[in-house]
Structures are given as structure tokens and as C-alpha cells.
């Protein structure tokens, strides 16, 4: 494969700029860390439940075969879980790789909101985790940007959370923990309305319990049997959601809404768009609010993060497919500190320079609310 001998900065060219669209902060002591950010009555409830750290989002067969999802080598020197120390993360990820903006997305909040917490619990926990991260992380470094989470089991409460903190200058997106309700469904519309109002894109990412529990999206065809099987099929919810967003008319209803699919892959997009366009040409009259080709809506409103980049035997095959897709759809992401992360210096090196820079920088600036 196309690998250098050792890790190198994103480019020897100092003008090369990088936005990382997918970085996972870990709140080190889970729920007990965010007690100061919630009403005392709720703190007492979680204490009495002994729900101080948080619940495990995966059952036995979906535990990572190597024991943890996080990179062992990304542990902070002071100890603790990888991704739990913002100061170390800034050095280990941003400084080493010359990343100018890193979009933080907390999957602990995501898993609690999509599945692990009850509806009322999720509303309280979501606000507490958001406030903790604003207070304990965003103040550390202005390069740290934040995809604030929302309690998706209650769309009205989610919209209220967006309006409560959405004006924070380092908040650049809304991380929406998906349920097993397709994204075009009107259930989600109050959230889209608030997102559009705040000029924030909707960011979606698997939250952990996907394909495991009832609640989040489930892969098509049945329940996978291992971590490997499950991992390979996680992209399916992305494909279904793109389709649903377009044909339900979400982008006609919310003409300024943007959506970024993070870690769902992207090579499936080209055949999906061909299929959507063909079927629309055949049966447009069933969804007459879809006034343009689905391809146009997707190009205008939807973006995809790059990681985990697929690895054909000949890397040039990947470059050809990206060229066919066009260079406007992709935003670079690492997924630090997870085991399957991609670092800038080793990623998409065969692309033409200007187009590669769009994927690593320009596309993110026009997708996230960067000021």
C-alpha cells in the first residue's frame, strides 16, 4: 500500500492547510465528570443508580477484537483514556499534523442520547456534556471546534438545546445521534429548522450502539455476528439517509440546510446517485416536490468525511473514483484517537494538489460554520 516509512506532517508544503472533521474527545470519568453541569436532583438520581461512568455501548460480540477502540499509543502521559486530555490532544494531533481546526464530536454523549439513556435523562446529560466540553475543552485552544450534541429522542428539546448554546463561536456543527428513523422523516424537522436558523450543519456519525440495540440505525438484512461484520455494514445507514433526505424534500423545506456524513464512507455515493437519478426520472410524479435531479441536491447540501479511506490494491483506482465523484463532496477527517484513524500525511496523496487542498481545507470551510 501507499505508505511512507514514518509518520510525516501533512505536507512538506507549509502552505497546505488542514481541517480535521472528526476528532473524539473522551470525558474521562463519564457521567460523574459532568455532575457540576446538571441540577442537583438529577445528580442524585444518577448517583443512586450508580451510573457514574456511563454504560457500555457494545455487547460482548461487538467488543473490539483488540480490546479497545482507542489507540493505545494516544494515551495522555498523565494516564487515562486516549482522547481524554485536551492539552495532550492539541500536541499529539493538531501540532504534529499542522491541523488548524479540529471538529470535536463526543460519542459518549451520542450513545447516551441515541440509546443508552432514557429520554429525560438524555436531555439533562446532553446539556451537561455539552457544557462540560465548552468549559473544559474549548477554552484550552481556539483550534478546537465543537459539533454540539442534541438529545435526539426529543426533537423539541434538541431544537431548544441548539438555540441555547448554538451561538458559541467555537460551535461549528450539530452532532445528531441518529435513531432508526430515516433522516427525511418529519420527526427530525424541528432540529433542521433550528440548525438552519443557527447556520449550523447537521453532522451525523455512528454513536456506538448502531446495529446492536433497538434505537439507533440497524444494518440491512439482519444482525451481524462480529465486530468486523458490523463495522463493514455501518455505512448502510448513511446510504439510506441520503436517499431519504432527498426524496422527502428536506432540502426544499430547508433550503439552507447542510448535512455532513462522517465515517460512513463515500465510495457508495456514485452508484447511489446514479440509481436515485434514474429512478427520479422514471417516477418523479410520486414526489413532485423533488424539483431537481437528486444529484443536484446532494452536491449542494451534503458532504462526506474521508475516513476510513478504502484501500484498493492500486491506490490510483481510488483517485479515479474520487475524480468521477468530483472534489466538492469530501472533507478530510482523522477519527483520532480511534484505531482506524487516517493521518493527513498518508491520506489521498495521489490527488492533484489543488483538489487535495479542497478536500483537506476549502470544503470544510464552506460546510462548517467557521467564522
Amino acid at each position: 500500500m501507499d505508505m511512507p516509512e514514518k509518520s510525516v506532517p501533512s505536507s512538506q508544503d507549509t502552505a497546505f492547510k488542514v481541517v480535521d472533521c472528526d476528532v473524539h474527545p473522551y470525558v474521562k470519568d463519564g457521567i460523574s465528570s459532568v455532575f457540576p453541569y446538571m441540577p442537583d436532583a438529577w445528580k442524585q438520581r444518577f448517583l443512586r443508580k450508580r451510573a457514574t461512568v456511563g454504560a457500555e455501548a457494545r455487547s460482548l460480540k461487538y467488543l473490539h477484537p483488540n480490546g479497545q477502540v482507542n489507540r493505545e499509543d494516544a494515551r495522555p502521559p498523565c494516564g487515562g483514556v486516549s482522547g481524554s486530555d485536551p492539552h495532550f490532544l492539541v500536541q499529539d494531533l493538531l501540532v504534529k499534523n499542522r491541523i488548524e481546526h479540529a471538529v470535536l464530536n463526543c460519542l459518549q454523549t451520542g450513545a447516551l442520547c441515541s440509546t443508552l439513556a432514557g429520554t429525560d435523562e438524555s436531555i439533562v446529560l446532553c446539556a451537561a456534556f455539552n457544557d462540560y466540553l465548552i468549559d473544559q475543552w474549548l477554552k484550552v485552544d481556539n483550534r478546537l471546534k465543537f459539533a454540539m450534541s442534541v438529545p435526539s429522542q426529543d426533537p423539541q428539546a434538541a431544537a431548544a438545546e441548539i438555540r441555547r448554546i448554538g451561538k458559541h463561536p467555537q460551535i461549528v456543527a450539530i452532532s445528531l445521534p441518529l435513531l432508526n428513523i430515516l433522516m427525511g422523516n418529519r420527526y427530525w424537522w424541528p432540529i433542521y429548522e433550528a440548525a438552519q436558523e443557527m447556520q449550523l450543519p447537521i453532522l451525523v456519525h455512528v454513536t456506538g450502539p448502531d446495529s446492536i440495540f433497538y434505537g439507533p440505525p440497524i444494518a440491512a438484512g439482519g444482525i451481524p455476528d462480529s465486530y468486523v461484520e458490523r463495522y463493514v455494514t455501518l455505512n448502510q445507514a448513511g446510504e439510506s439517509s441520503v436517499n431519504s433526505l432527498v426524496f422527502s424534500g428536506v432540502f426544499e423545506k430547508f433550503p439552507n440546510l447542510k448535512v455532513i456524513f462522517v465515517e460512513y464512507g463515500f465510495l457508495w455515493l456514485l452508484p447511489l446517485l446514479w440509481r436515485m437519478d434514474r429512478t427520479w426520472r422514471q417516477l418523479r410524479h410520486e414526489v413532485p416536490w423533488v424539483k431537481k435531479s437528486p444529484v443536484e441536491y446532494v452536491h449542494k447540501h451534503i458532504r462526506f468525511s474521508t475516513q476510513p479511506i478504502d484501500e484498493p490494491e492500486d491506490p490510483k483506482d481510488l483517485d479515479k473514483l474520487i475524480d468521477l465523484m468530483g472534489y466538492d463532496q469530501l472533507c478530510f477527517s482523522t477519527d483520532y484517537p480511534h484505531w482506524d484513524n487516517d493521518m493527513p500525511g498518508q491520506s489521498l496523496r495521489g490527488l492533484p494538489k489543488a483538489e487535495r487542498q479542497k478536500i483537506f481545507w476549502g470544503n470544510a470551510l464552506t460546510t462548517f460554520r467557521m467564522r
Partner: protein
Amino acid sequence: MAEKKQHTVGKTTDFPVGKFKIIDIGGREIGIAQLKNGEFRAVRNVCPHKGAPVCKGPIVGTHLPSAVGELIYGRDGEVLACPWHGFEFDLLTGDELIQSGKPTKLLMFPVAVENDNVVVTL
């Protein structure tokens, strides 16, 4: 190309409004129909998409572009829907209703009414 000829295909009353009658003209299948506005159309019975016998599809109206969740019916009697893949064609012009991308077009022949006879030129 052979020189074009005029073919009398029947009386106007042979062609009810809103339905294609398919006839053979020199080995070519041609659908003849009278529209609601009294005009006649002569259409090659081959869909430009994938070769279906397009004139066997219904002459319909359709749902016009509308707001989300709303249906507006219009163009009644002016749209031919292919019986295979459902491509919709404007019988006033022959154009595919969807004009984005690379739209297809029906092959239509001149048709006139002379002394109550329907005359197709091809």
C-alpha cells in the same frame, strides 16, 4: 433516406381522444392519437429510453412540481407515460418532462387533417 410520403391513416373519428392507435406504415409502428385540444400526434412506437412500445402507455396528466407534501394535478391528457420505466413525455412537444441532464425526446412525425382524413408524413 427515402423521400417522405404522405399516408392517409383513417378518418378523424377513427382516433378517439386520449388513446393511441398503433398502425404499420411501411414497416414502422406509428402511434396516432387525438389530443384533448383536437390536435393529432403521430409518434414512433419506440421509447427513446430503452425501446419500449411507448404508445401502449397511457395518456395521462401528472403531478406538477409542488411544495413538500402537496399534490397539484395538471397537464391532463397531454402526457404520455411509457409502460415500461414510466418516463413521461410532453405530447405537445415530444420532450421528456424532466429537462435536466440529457433528456430524451419522442420521435414525432407531421400529421394533418385534410377533408376529415388524418394524413401522416414520413
